[in-house]
């Protein structure tokens, strides 16, 4: 049996301007010199897990987690905030649990990585030396892909694709919309964060509309001709919301080329659409830090060795989560969690002079279509010739003919999935 020890750390010189998250019982420097220093940038679904599992498997490694925000707001279940089923507080987590595990959690924004010197630079001038660096910065947006869109316009035409303020803006607009209005969701091309997300969002908002403004409509303008769990979503929409949700595929004219934010008009390849509320989910690429640090290639995403998640561009830097190119794995919180663990094991092995371990990966995404209707997709993966591939016959989506009881159970399991994955990250 493995025993987990929680080491006591002496609080040595606190690093100048960067705030240390997680309360006063900090652990900045170990009493004895560490075996190695690992810095993790980004305390989300990927980074928090990598930091924790590093500590769990080798307590002699000093782990520093750098996160720009004081608290983490989860995207998973944030569609329920749009539907009025929960508030953002229920999706907000702090880093005290990770501090208690002996991880030095620093609130700082990383602005530069020097791969030659093995140094990470923070916005306030702090420098963090590393032997191994793990980066999990999430996604950024390719504003230029749709004419008229920009970060400033997103204050009025929200994407709500990072949970927090953006989610609140969209929720308020939906609340203010008059009954009979049209809500447009502009869905991005692949690859993007959370493939089922836009379609779950449509269902959650339909749930709100059907109880508060039942004459309203939801139109999804899609850049794609197919989407995740499509059959299950379309059947579920029909079952609960009749014709309230309409999906326009790319081929049918769903591709949006430009927007006029003043008149809230979307310009498609055939038609224009004027919406009362517009949720434009932009085209995506690896988080800004990955771009500035030169970790991304021309695709906008970060190529890695899919066994270890070490960057194919810079040695000793690993990229996990949405930002990396991970073969058959979709960009999801569960994928980021699974990759964080594989990466942590590879980093521990490298530090201890062992061969990189044979990896195992899993993904699951639950979606909630109505209060008693959940669906899921799962994937189990292995490495084949350097690429992450689906294990044939494993995984797949919930059965199309599942009974009401199974759907209700899956909705409950979806909520518990959230409880457990966030406890895996933050406790």
């Amino acid at each position, binding site marked *: 049996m493995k025993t987990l020890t929680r080491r006591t750390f002496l609080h040595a010189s606190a690093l100048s301007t960067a705030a240390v998250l997680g309360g006063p019982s900090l652990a900045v420097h170990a009493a004895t010199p560490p075996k190695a220093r690992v810095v993790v940038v980004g305390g989300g679904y990927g980074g928090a897990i990598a930091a924790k599992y590093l500590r769990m498997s080798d307590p002699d490694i000093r782990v520093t987690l750098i996160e720009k925000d004081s608290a983490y707001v989860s995207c998973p279940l944030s569609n329920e905030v749009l539907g009025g089923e929960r508030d953002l507080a229920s999706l907000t987590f702090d880093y005290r649990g990770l501090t208690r595990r002996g991880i030095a959690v620093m609130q700082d924004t990383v602005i530069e990585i020097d791969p030659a010197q093995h140094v990470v630079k923070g916005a306030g001038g702090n420098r963090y030396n590393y032997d191994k660096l793990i980066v999990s910065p999430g996604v950024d947006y390719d504003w230029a892909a749709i004419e008229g869109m920009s970060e400033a316009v997103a204050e009025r035409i929200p994407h709500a694709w990072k949970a927090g303020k953006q989610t609140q803006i969209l929720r308020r607009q939906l609340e203010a919309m008059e009954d009979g209005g049209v809500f447009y969701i502009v869905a991005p091309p692949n690859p993007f964060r959370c493939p089922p997300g836009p379609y779950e969002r449509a269902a959650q908002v339909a749930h709100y509309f059907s109880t508060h403004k039942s004459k309203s409509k939801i139109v999804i303008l899609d850049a794609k001709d197919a989407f995740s769990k499509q059959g299950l979503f379309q059947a579920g929409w029909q079952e609960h919301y009749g014709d309230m949700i309409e999906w326009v595929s790319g081929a049918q004219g769903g591709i949006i080329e430009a927007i006029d934010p003043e008149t809230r008009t979307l310009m498609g390849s055939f038609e224009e659409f004027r919406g009362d509320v517009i949720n434009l989910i932009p085209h995506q690429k690896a988080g800004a830090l990955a771009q500035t640090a030169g970790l991304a290639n021309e695709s906008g995403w970060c190529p890695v060795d899919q066994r270890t998640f070490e960057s194919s561009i810079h040695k000793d830097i690993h990229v996990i989560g949405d930002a990396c190119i991970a073969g058959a794995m979709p960009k999801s919180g569960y994928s980021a969690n699974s990759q964080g663990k594989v990466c942590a094991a590879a980093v521990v092995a490298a530090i201890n002079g062992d061969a990189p*371990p*044979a990896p195992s990966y899993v993904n*699951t995404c639950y979606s909630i279509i109505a209060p008693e209707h959940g669906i899921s997709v799962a994937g189990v993966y292995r*490495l*084949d010739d350097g690429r992450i591939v689906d294990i044939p*016959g494993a995984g797949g989506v919930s059965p199309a003919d599942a009974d009401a009881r*199974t759907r209700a159970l899956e909705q409950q399991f979806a909520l518990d*999935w959230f409880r*457990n994955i966030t406890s895996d990250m933050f406790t």
Partner: protein
Amino acid sequence: MPVSTWSRALCVCLLIGMFPSLPLHAEEVRSESMLANTCAGCHGTLGASAGEVMPTIGGMDKGYLVEVLTDYKTGRRPSTIMGRIMQGYGDREISAIASFYAAQPWVSTDRVAVADQLAEAPALHERYCESCHQDGGRSQDAESPRMAGQWAGYLQYAMQACRDGERCHPRKMRNRVAELSDAQIAALAHFYESQK
């Protein structure tokens, strides 16, 4: 395993030992923790679930885990998602995963009993269940799971599935659970959850 596969596996291992940078192939052995850590996103770190219908699995008996995981894989035990997931693992991997979780401490929920939730549960347990689920549901072996300190939501789901005939062995238990009302099932679930 036929001899040829053995020698091939041995050969691969030797090669890996000599040339660590050699590309590895599908036959390579994935460690217990590597395989088992993928479950934690749903079942909690080291299998200690944060609730309510998702079961705690850390600290279960190894034999029971092997049986249950194999039953999910073959479809003998119906499930919403476990069947789809277990298709991804071979028998030796299932055994490795089971070893990992059997070696973890069992972490009971911190729920306490609320008297009016329990009603006749202790008496029902004594009469119908204690013969197999001994010591207030604390006992466990390769055939039957520990229930004390398990989440009530999961126990309720399992008992309902048993009563409704979806899955239930042994038959003797089915006969007893079949007679329980919804209220009695809820009471028993809270009873076991509150036993630590």
